[in-house]
């Protein structure tokens, strides 16, 4: 059963979504950099939140068409808000995100309606396998070897 599920994971709809939207790769790169710096600035958020929000952005852009570059900031901040709700004990407030992260470019109403469209497009499926979990698992298994390796280094 597990092998089948793994294959389904690989065949998951991964298309080059840049063809369907009206922005180029540099702008997307800028957005992701901006998201990472903002998530890192808030101490409460974990690394899982960071990986999850980038994954969420990717799957959302795969399933939609026709967004322009001006919308990207709104989508990115909504993804941060959703993933923070999903993973953190105390998620950040809406006001914090609008005032601090978006610098009041959008109103609360626009923000919440965008969040709602993301939820409806994905049909509330927010549970993804992120690269972070694979790394966690690999390093968990490697832990005894690594500690042995470092001990050997110290002796030399």
């Amino acid at each position, binding site marked *: 059963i597990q092998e089948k599920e793994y294959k389904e994971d690989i065949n998951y709809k991964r298309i080059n979504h840049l063809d369907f939207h009206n922005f180029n790769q540099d702008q997307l790169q800028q957005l992701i950099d901006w998201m990472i710096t903002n998530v890192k600035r808030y101490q409460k958020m*974990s690394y899982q939140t960071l990986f999850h929000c980038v994954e969420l952005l990717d799957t959302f852009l795969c399933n939609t*068409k026709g967004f322009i570059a001006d919308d990207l900031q709104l989508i990115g901040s909504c993804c941060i808000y959703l993933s923070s709700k999903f993973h953190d004990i105390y998620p950040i407030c809406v006001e914090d995100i609008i005032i601090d992260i978006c610098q009041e470019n959008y109103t609360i109403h626009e923000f919440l309606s965008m969040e709602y469209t993301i939820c409806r497009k994905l049909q509330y499926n927010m549970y993804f396998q992120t690269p972070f979990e694979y790394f966690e698992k690999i390093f968990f298994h490697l832990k005894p070897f690594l500690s042995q390796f470092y001990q050997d280094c110290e002796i030399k």
Partner: protein
Amino acid sequence: MQIVIINSNATELYVIHKILYQIKDIIYYYMSASENVRYIKIQKIGEGAYGIIYKAQDVQTEEIVALKKFKLSDNEGVPSCALREISILNQLNHPNIIKLISQIIINKKLHLVMNYYDMDLTEYLKFNHEEFHLKNIIYKILLAVEFIHNRKIIHRDLQPNNILITNNEPVLIDFGLSRVLSPNMTPGVTQLWYRAPELLSNCNTYDYAIDMWSLGCIIAEIALNKPLFMGSSEIHQLLLIKNIINGNEWFLHNSQFAKLNNLFIDLINVCISLEFLEIIIS
């Protein structure tokens, strides 16, 4: 919705987008209004911190379903417990775990549509049953919990009220408190009688063991026909748990367990393991 506009300014595009979004909102509002008629609420079943549960009937198929209504606040958007519950339930496909039929929006409030079962484990235990059926129920619950834990999910609210029974088969419900495993989590979960000692001592970093603790309590309750620890407060609960610290001896001296098989006591003992408690006391 596909828009192809060539040779136009970015500002014009942006204005068109804004208008289209408003039209979309209106269309979806009316679409949800038509779905409003599909389910008719019959009566209220239960109520919790997350929202209210209704018993309802589907008009098209004349099937009886359970509707779970979430309290939506205006300035927070989708509630986080709803997000977690829907996305986790969509992942789980198992005969002993409840199936999510769909999620709809009535009067701007999020509703979950699920199958309706009328029997509870606490109600089920009020009558006498054959030993074979009880063993089957314990085995199926253990399978379902193993299935959840393999997906890196913790249930966090296991108790007899959250296990429904149809035709002597158990069904796990209520994933409102469940979440994906992470290093930091809130300690105030699970009902008091089924709460693990690490939760009672306000620990932030716990894992699947808390589910196993409440499972052990449930298995003992199925065998004895009454709850294992009935504490009135957190400290009283900890004192009751302290009695069990000698493990096997306590079970041997207690007359309640005299009728039970040794293997069965071992099963309970493994679920309620006390490694953590011994660290605290020493």
